[in-house]
């Protein structure tokens, strides 16, 4: 499922002028992936990622050299189906203990920066 990493965007791997040059992806693509992953990258990091991600995609791209006609995409590596649990309640965790994990609990709730931008 390598292609879903950049869903909706065709991946363009730009080959360098020399054969030895590592594959590189566009700066825009790196910025986009970073934004979707809520990561802040500085200029150096973006440059590094262009190469790193390019190499990873290039590596995955090798799969396309194989003849995979008729091979079902694999969604899971273990050969199991229908692993389910009965609808029986189990005790929830103590609230204080769960809220201890939050940086700023307030009013028995998890406090987060305001998400309310709508009027």
């Amino acid at each position, binding site marked *: *499922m390598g292609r*879903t*990493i950049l*869903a*909706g965007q065709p991946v363009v791997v730009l080959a360098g002028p020399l054969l030895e040059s590592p594959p590189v992806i566009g700066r825009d693509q790196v910025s986009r992936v970073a934004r*979707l992953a*809520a990561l802040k990258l500085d200029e150096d990091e973006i440059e590094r990622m262009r190469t790193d991600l390019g190499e990873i995609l290039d590596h995955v791209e090798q799969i396309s050299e194989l003849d995979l006609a008729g091979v079902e995409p694999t*969604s*899971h590596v*273990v050969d*199991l*189906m*229908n*692993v*389910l*649990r*009965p*609808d*029986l*309640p*189990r005790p*929830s*965790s103590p*609230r204080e203990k*769960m*809220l201890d*994990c939050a940086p700023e609990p*307030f*009013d*028995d*709730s*998890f*406090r*987060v*920066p*305001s*998400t*309310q*931008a*709508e*009027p």
Partner: protein
Amino acid sequence: MGASASELEAVIGLEIHVQLATRTKMFCGCELSFGDEPNVHTCPICLAHPGVLPVPNEQAIRYALQIGLALECEIAPWSIFHRKNYFYPDSPKAYQISQYDIPICGAGRLGDVRIHRAHLEEDAAKMVHVGESGRIHGSGASLVDFNRGGTPLVEIVTEPDLRGAAEAAEWARLLRETVRQLGVSDVNMEEGSLRVDANVSVRPAGSEELGTKTELKNMNSFRFLQRGIEAELARQRELVESGGSVTQETLHFDPASGTLTPLRSKEEAHDYRYFPEPDLVPLAPTEEMLREAREALPELPAARISRYEGMGLAGDVALTLATDPETADYFENTVKAADGIEPRVVANWVTGELAAALRQAEVSGGASGSKVSPKSLADLVRLVQEKKISHGSGKTVLAKLVEEGGDPAAIVDREGLAQISGDDGELAAIVEQAMADNPDAVEKIREGNGKAIGAIVGAVMRETKGRADGGEVNRLIRERL
């Protein structure tokens, strides 16, 4: 475009989220609740602590299959869960476990509307927004209550087959009634256990192409659903008519003002990067699971409506009964007891006179819980049909039955309600007297004023205490003009 409003056709599709009434959450054993203190139903799984593993609730799968079967969906022989990635505090994992390209339920139909798909997913947590002026000092903050987070949901997506706001609301009511009768959800729109979003667009009538749609959210009643769609259709029509074009966006309905406001664009930037959920194995409904789900299906409203219409009932009466299965069963038992009387007549008594009598006497619990047995209602209807008593006397007897139950024929005897017929001369005599007492009315009828007959009929009814048949009285008067 210059198209006039009348030439623009509405194209509406609905997305319905149904909270399943399981005991526990979708992927962990925390109990479901509504209105409890915040964050008392959480655990490391639904709070997404590192290293935990979700395990699907088998009852939720069963309920999803029941919904799929009720909507005549193709059940996928094999389906998988996907991660839908987004950052928002209502989702502690930073993704929602949902289904993407292989949902558990595929194409189906309810009434005239095609179902595109129905899939399983988990609900988000509840956010409480506290502004700067609120109780939290300093900058504005939001509070998260994870009790709801992880509640099993089935999302039902229709094809864009609806052509108007009222039609959309009516269909949504049928869907809610269907899901309610399955017993798989509380379907309470105010509490959010049923949530309806609408995709709305317009296009030139007759066109096959779809216009640009907007998505309407937060309409927590059928009335608001209809009003929201109406408002949005009006806006789009005006826009297109004046040469503009619709922008794809999500609009939030404000019930207080009845207006639609665009959500900020950041939330719009949907790029969910779905990928198969590696923590969950595929779901492949077995023959046994399917059989169990099928056996749990009651007769659903759409099926009842068409069966009742086949029995000769009017559409609105069939609908009234289909949305109230207990009364519908009562109706069917009465039809059986009223051997030979048209079901249409029985249905009118059940949904008309009996419903009114129960309301009048403030009896709750419906016909099936009342003192009027199907047998006694059937006997009463027969007395009226055979003109042993008048329709008005029938209502009097019904009021007694509601109060004390019993045998209608005995009540008729006791109360002296047997119909006075014209044949034995008694009714004819009363009619003649009434005509003699109202010469003005008689004159008016002769002059062609048909309404004037009411005065004479009224006098006869007073004299007979309602025991005369209205049609019979009319005939006797006209014979004597």
